[in-house]
């Protein structure tokens, strides 16, 4: 790794003035760093909306019967919450924000391979978001199918499905464009000396993710198109009355949506692989194993989709094939956990906020992952499918996994992105409140699922009441934590203490340039001679 530090006589990318002024200098910018921030700000807004919807749902669930909304509204709420969180936050999430911002820098490049395509990605994202959200306000009522749009209800419901489905379809192009861009960037634009096995683990994670984005998304695209054809022309693919099979819809939907969860988690794992060596002041344990397991997860992840469909009516052969493959795909994830923990062994750890987020990640990700194993077992799945247990599982692994890694990344790379440091005290307080709230919110759901509470139900029997109160209280606590965290970051972006180039003593290329970076990142493309995380 080159140790030269960027000269400070260049304007930062935040201040750079090109052809456009003001807002247009941002929304027409092809600078990967600005595009990363455009995604970040858009997601902040959308996440807040979806989180509030979630909170309202939890308030509804605090007691049996109607509390603050009727059943139809509840159905449309969990649909909107899911669509927004999945398609607009966690799928684009880490690649769109931190991948865009840091991939070129971490491989020693000045931008991505196709900067204009990158900007187009964001524009398509916004277009898809607007169209999907318009479904809430136009037509015959907001969609109520859940984010999974299962046939036949999705083509029979009178609610306003077309904009939602079309919006999701359009969003797919944004994901594909980002994936394509990253693959070519990584293949073609690594700095001299940076061989594949000298590339840091976050770019590796983005690489695996990008292949999934590119190869899996088109399938959901064409499936959503089929739903549109079903609704508008009664094409019959999923309509039993016309010869179609609703289970085929589920197959096609999950052939994308399972790999999609690896789109969510692989970059998250990449972030953890960056944070842990830095704060452990020790090189990552088992770099090669992490690379191989990243690619293994991406590959095997294509073949397990049926575990979302165990009770749908598939053949016995399909059932046990998918179950076995699901157990296989857990192995590379477990390998990573071992490697991260092994890195911490005998390390001299600097306990900073990003590191605390990484530790919390390990805790919640393990719970999420292990509960996934429970669900992957056919016999257990029969009892737990479509219960609150599943809701707990995916919130632990997606919110806990991708979400925690996102906040960890935000606190890790914040000084680099904004040139300022956040208030560490408030950051840690926010984390503590958030973490407590998170676990209080989601842990009871495992129990509720086991005793039989269904998911996506607006009402429940009295015996489920107690844990629901605890859970709903956890939601409020968690939101309070989020408010503290986000307020701290927003204030610090403008008024925080100025940050140095390398506040964490990191060993990857982003720490060799100024905070914030100049427009072209590097004055001179560095010559890479050492492997990443070389603390010894």
């Amino acid at each position, binding site marked *: 790794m080159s140790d030269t530090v960027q000269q400070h006589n260049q304007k930062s990318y935040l201040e750079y003035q*090109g052809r456009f002024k003001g807002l247009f200098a941002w929304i027409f910018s092809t600078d990967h760093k600005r595009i990363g921030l455009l995604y970040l700000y858009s997601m902040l807004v959308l996440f807040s909306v979806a989180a509030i919807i979630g909170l309202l749902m939890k308030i509804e669930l605090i007691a049996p019967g109607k509390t603050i909304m009727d059943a139809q509204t509840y159905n449309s709420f969990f649909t909107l919450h899911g669509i927004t969180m999945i398609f607009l936050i966690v799928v684009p999430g880490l690649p769109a924000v931190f991948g865009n911002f840091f991939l070129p820098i971490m491989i020693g490049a000045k931008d991505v391979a196709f900067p204009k395509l990158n900007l187009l990605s964001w524009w398509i994202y916004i277009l898809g978001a607007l169209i999907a959200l318009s479904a809430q306000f136009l037509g015959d009522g907001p969609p109520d199918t859940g984010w999974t749009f299962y046939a036949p209800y999705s083509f029979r419901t009178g609610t306003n499905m077309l904009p939602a489905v079309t919006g999701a379809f359009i969003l797919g192009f944004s994901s594909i464009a980002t994936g394509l861009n990253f693959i070519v960037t990584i293949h073609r634009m690594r700095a001299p000396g940076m061989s594949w096995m000298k590339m840091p683990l976050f770019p590796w994670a983005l690489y695996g993710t990008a292949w999934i984005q590119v190869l899996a998304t088109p399938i959901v695209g064409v499936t959503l198109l089929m739903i549109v054809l079903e609704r508008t022309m009664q*094409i019959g693919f999923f309509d039993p009355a016309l010869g179609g099979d609703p289970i085929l819809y589920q197959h096609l939907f999950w052939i994308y949506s399972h790999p999609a969860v690896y789109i969510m988690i692989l970059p998250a794992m990449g972030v953890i692989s960056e944070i842990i060596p830095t704060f452990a002041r020790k090189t990552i344990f088992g770099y090669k194993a992490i690379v191989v397991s990243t690619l293994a997860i991406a590959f095997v992840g294509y073949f397990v989709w049926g575990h979302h469909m165990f009770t749908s009516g598939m053949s016995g052969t399909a059932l046990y094939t998918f179950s076995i493959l699901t157990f296989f795909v857990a192995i590379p994830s477990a390998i990573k956990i071992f490697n991260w923990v092994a890195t911490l062994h005998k390390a001299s750890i600097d306990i900073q906020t990003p590191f605390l987020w990484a530790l919390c990640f390990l805790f919640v990700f393990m719970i999420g992952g292990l509960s996934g194993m429970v669900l992957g077992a056919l016999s257990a799945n029969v009892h737990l499918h479509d219960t609150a247990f599943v809701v707990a599982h995916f919130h632990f692994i997606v919110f806990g996994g991708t979400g925690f890694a996102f906040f960890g990344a935000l606190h890790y790379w914040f000084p680099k992105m904004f040139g300022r440091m956040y208030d560490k005290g408030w950051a840690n307080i926010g984390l503590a409140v958030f973490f407590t709230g998170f676990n209080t919110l989601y842990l009871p759901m495992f129990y509720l699922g086991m005793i039989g509470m269904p998911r996506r139900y607006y009402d429940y029997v009295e015996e489920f009441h107690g844990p629901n109160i605890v859970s709903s209280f956890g939601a409020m606590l968690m939101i309070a934590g989020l408010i503290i965290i986000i307020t701290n970051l927003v204030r610090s972006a403008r008024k925080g203490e100025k940050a140095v180039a390398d506040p964490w003593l990191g060993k990857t290329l982003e720490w060799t340039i100024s905070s914030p970076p100049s427009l072209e990142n590097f004055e001179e493309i560095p010559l890479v001679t050492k492997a990443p995380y070389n603390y010894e």
Partner: protein
Amino acid sequence: MNNHVHIDEHRDDEGAKTGMWIFIFTEILLFGGLFIVYSVYRYLNPLAFHLAAHELSTFIGTLNTVILLVSSMTIAMSITAIQYKNKKLTLILMGITLLLAFIFLVNKYFEWSGKISHGIYPGSEILQEASRGEILFFGLYYAMTGLHALHIIIGMAFIGYVMRMVAKNEVRHDNFILLENSGLYWHLVDLIWIFLFPLFYLIT
């Protein structure tokens, strides 16, 4: 667009080609989803598919296949032509490709309007009376050939655009990656048809 000088060494033909191939992969998977649907319903309704296929004209299908294969050859040849600095021949070959594509679409138009005038289209009364397998066959026929035709139109636009670039000498013997990429896209369109043809026209 950002106005900082995006470095001139930023020309990367290999990268552009890689990008195009990745895009082609997305198209393969896109049609792949429909091929999965076809395979499943063909497996479940073999006789109905076999009977329904009789309604399609093998002659037009074969003609369209020949047309597309020839057009693939002509666009491939245009790359050789431009490498030999033969701008005129390049444009002629590209023009023939477009012409053949257009004829393909005309054939498709006649095929479709023939079917539609006989009341065979998704949601039609006649189709409602038909067997389940036949409904699915025609649903797939319209969806797949329709999506394919859309890609032909896109391909024509792409090739047309590149023709303009060739005419303006912006695509030349020493800078023709755009032509190559438009050719790749066109071959993809041909590849899809190579599979569509037997699956819809040759299962009688």
